[in-house]
């Protein structure tokens, strides 16, 4: 799975029974019967492609598991590998007993069943979700793309526009914020500006076609495209329309950004433009000099990715990468650049520019302004170092 190296070596160490001119053994006997997996799973040979969990977590109720970005292609994250971050474990919710309450500055406080929610007009969009602590600003930085920015995934979401649901209740004058609450053991609570709620916020119940996974908020979650992932409250049970934010623990103690002078930025919602090369990337190895495609993902909370530039000479020069169509708003965008590796040490990196003209900064530029006590919203360029033997490692580590 995902290795760039070693298959010729592997094959050579195997016996050659299955290699030409021999007929491989799996053609000489029937395979597994149809329906042996009523809900399919990956090949046993992909068993290493799982969520990436730090080895040294103090506890697992409030923790995160990362998408193995370096093993994935395209822009869709399969649901089984979607990143996880939660604060009180993953609740097991019976959808028939789940309710969404909508109250506060509305004409008609309402309670909805899941079937009610599904009766509203629906919409589907491919959006990324990213945790804002992805990663923080302090060394040691991770080894792989997943270690660095694996709190990032992308899926096709289906649900109802929050605006439509708000209209059903009728917003009252003075409605400026909506406080969203999850039905988990953390009763996760975040305040969202009303502008976002009326722009592109969704109440999502499906993810890549099927119903949300428990780890992603089954049976209902808020989805705020381009905002830090924590705000897209999972297991959504309550929306309170208010004049002011609630100043919850998650928007004061956490998810605020400490500057070197001790001042703190609050309500820092947007995930700014970012990109990373996933192939070749840390932990992989180029098997041979010669042609290797450089491929990665780019995204911006502010809208579409406009361009991605790639440097293969440690930032001295940059070439524009090709973007895979369709380039979608607030979705991952796959970029690619053909490359001939001459077998010499090299440093490669990517740099995204979004529709607003914003250009992804270097880590040094971020640190110069923000210092390394700043914890969230690190959208630095992550260069990879390629050694003469083809091994790829984090050039910033």
């Amino acid at each position, binding site marked *: 799975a995902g290795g760039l190296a070693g298959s010729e070596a592997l094959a050579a160490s195997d016996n050659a029974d299955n290699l030409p001119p021999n007929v491989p053994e799996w053609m000489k006997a029937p395979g597994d019967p149809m329906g042996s997996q009523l809900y399919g799973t990956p090949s046993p040979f992909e068993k290493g492609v799982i969520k990436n969990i730090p080895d040294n977590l103090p506890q697992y*109720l409030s923790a995160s598991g990362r998408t193995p970005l370096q093993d994935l292609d395209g822009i869709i994250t399969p649901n089984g590998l979607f990143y996880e971050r939660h604060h009180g474990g993953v609740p097991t919710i019976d959808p028939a007993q789940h309710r969404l309450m909508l*109250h506060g500055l509305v004409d008609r406080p309402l*309670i909805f069943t899941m079937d009610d929610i599904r009766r509203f007009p629906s919409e589907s969009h491919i959006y990324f979700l990213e945790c804002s602590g992805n990663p923080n600003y302090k060394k040691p930085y991770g080894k792989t793309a997943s270690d660095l920015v694996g709190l990032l995934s992308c899926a096709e979401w289906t649900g109802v526009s929050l605006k439509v649901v708000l209209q059903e209740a009728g917003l009252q004058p003075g409605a400026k914020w909506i406080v969203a609450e999850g039905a988990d053991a953390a009763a996760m609570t975040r305040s969202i500006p009303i502008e976002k709620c009326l722009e592109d916020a969704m109440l999502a119940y499906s993810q890549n076609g099927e119903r949300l996974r428990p780890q992603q908020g089954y049976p209902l979650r808020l989805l705020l495209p381009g905002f830090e992932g924590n705000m897209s409250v999972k297991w959504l049970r309550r929306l309170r329309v208010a004049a002011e934010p609630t*100043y919850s623990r998650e928007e004061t103690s956490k998810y605020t950004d400490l500057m070197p002078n001790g001042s703190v*930025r609050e309500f*820092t919602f947007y995930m700014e433009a970012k990109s990373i090369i996933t192939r070749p990337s840390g932990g992989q190895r180029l098997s041979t000099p010669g042609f290797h495609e450089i491929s990665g993902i780019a995204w911006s909370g502010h809208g579409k990715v406009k361009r991605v530039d790639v440097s293969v000479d440690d930032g001295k020069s940059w070439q524009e990468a090709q973007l895979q169509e369709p380039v979608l708003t607030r979705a991952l965008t796959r970029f690619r650049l053909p490359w001939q590796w001459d077998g010499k040490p090299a440093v490669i990196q990517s740099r995204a520019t979004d529709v607003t003209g914003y250009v992804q900064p270097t880590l040094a530029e971020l640190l110069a302004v923000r210092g390394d006590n700043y914890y969230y919203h690190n959208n630095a360029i992550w260069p990879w170092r390629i050694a003469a033997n083809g091994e790829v490692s984090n050039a910033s580590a």
Partner: protein
Amino acid sequence: QEQGPYGIGRSATPAEIAGWNIDIGGDGENLPPGSGSVSHGRMVFDQQCAACHGAKGEGGVGDKLVGGQGTLATTNPVKTVGSYWPYASTLFDYIRRAMPQNAPQSLSNEDVYAVSAYILNMNGLLPADATLHAKRLSRINMPNRNTFVGDPRPDVP
């Protein structure tokens, strides 16, 4: 109160809203009646919190809850309720909804007031003989209240 455009959902009653709405505003809005003393809070803390947060709130599996004032602009900032949190009301809100982590929403409002009082006391923000209630909690002046600013990004490049 006519129907909404789609006629979907049913009215939420005041009792239902009251049962579910546990949000406390920064100014203490929606704090429930009741009160709790620092000394009762110490008992609650020792029994239900210290295992994760340390006997003196110094941290463990759970966050450090005490200390750190004056460190935020240093190379080793220590962020706690006392040093970092802008609103004391958030303490009541968060403990009630999420703590103790093994049994959230199990404390009475009185115990939440009490244990909040004790944490504030350990941070030097409430005297040892104090009793906390809605009005008093709303008035507590958190040291870091005025360092919070809005989002000036893009700040780089």
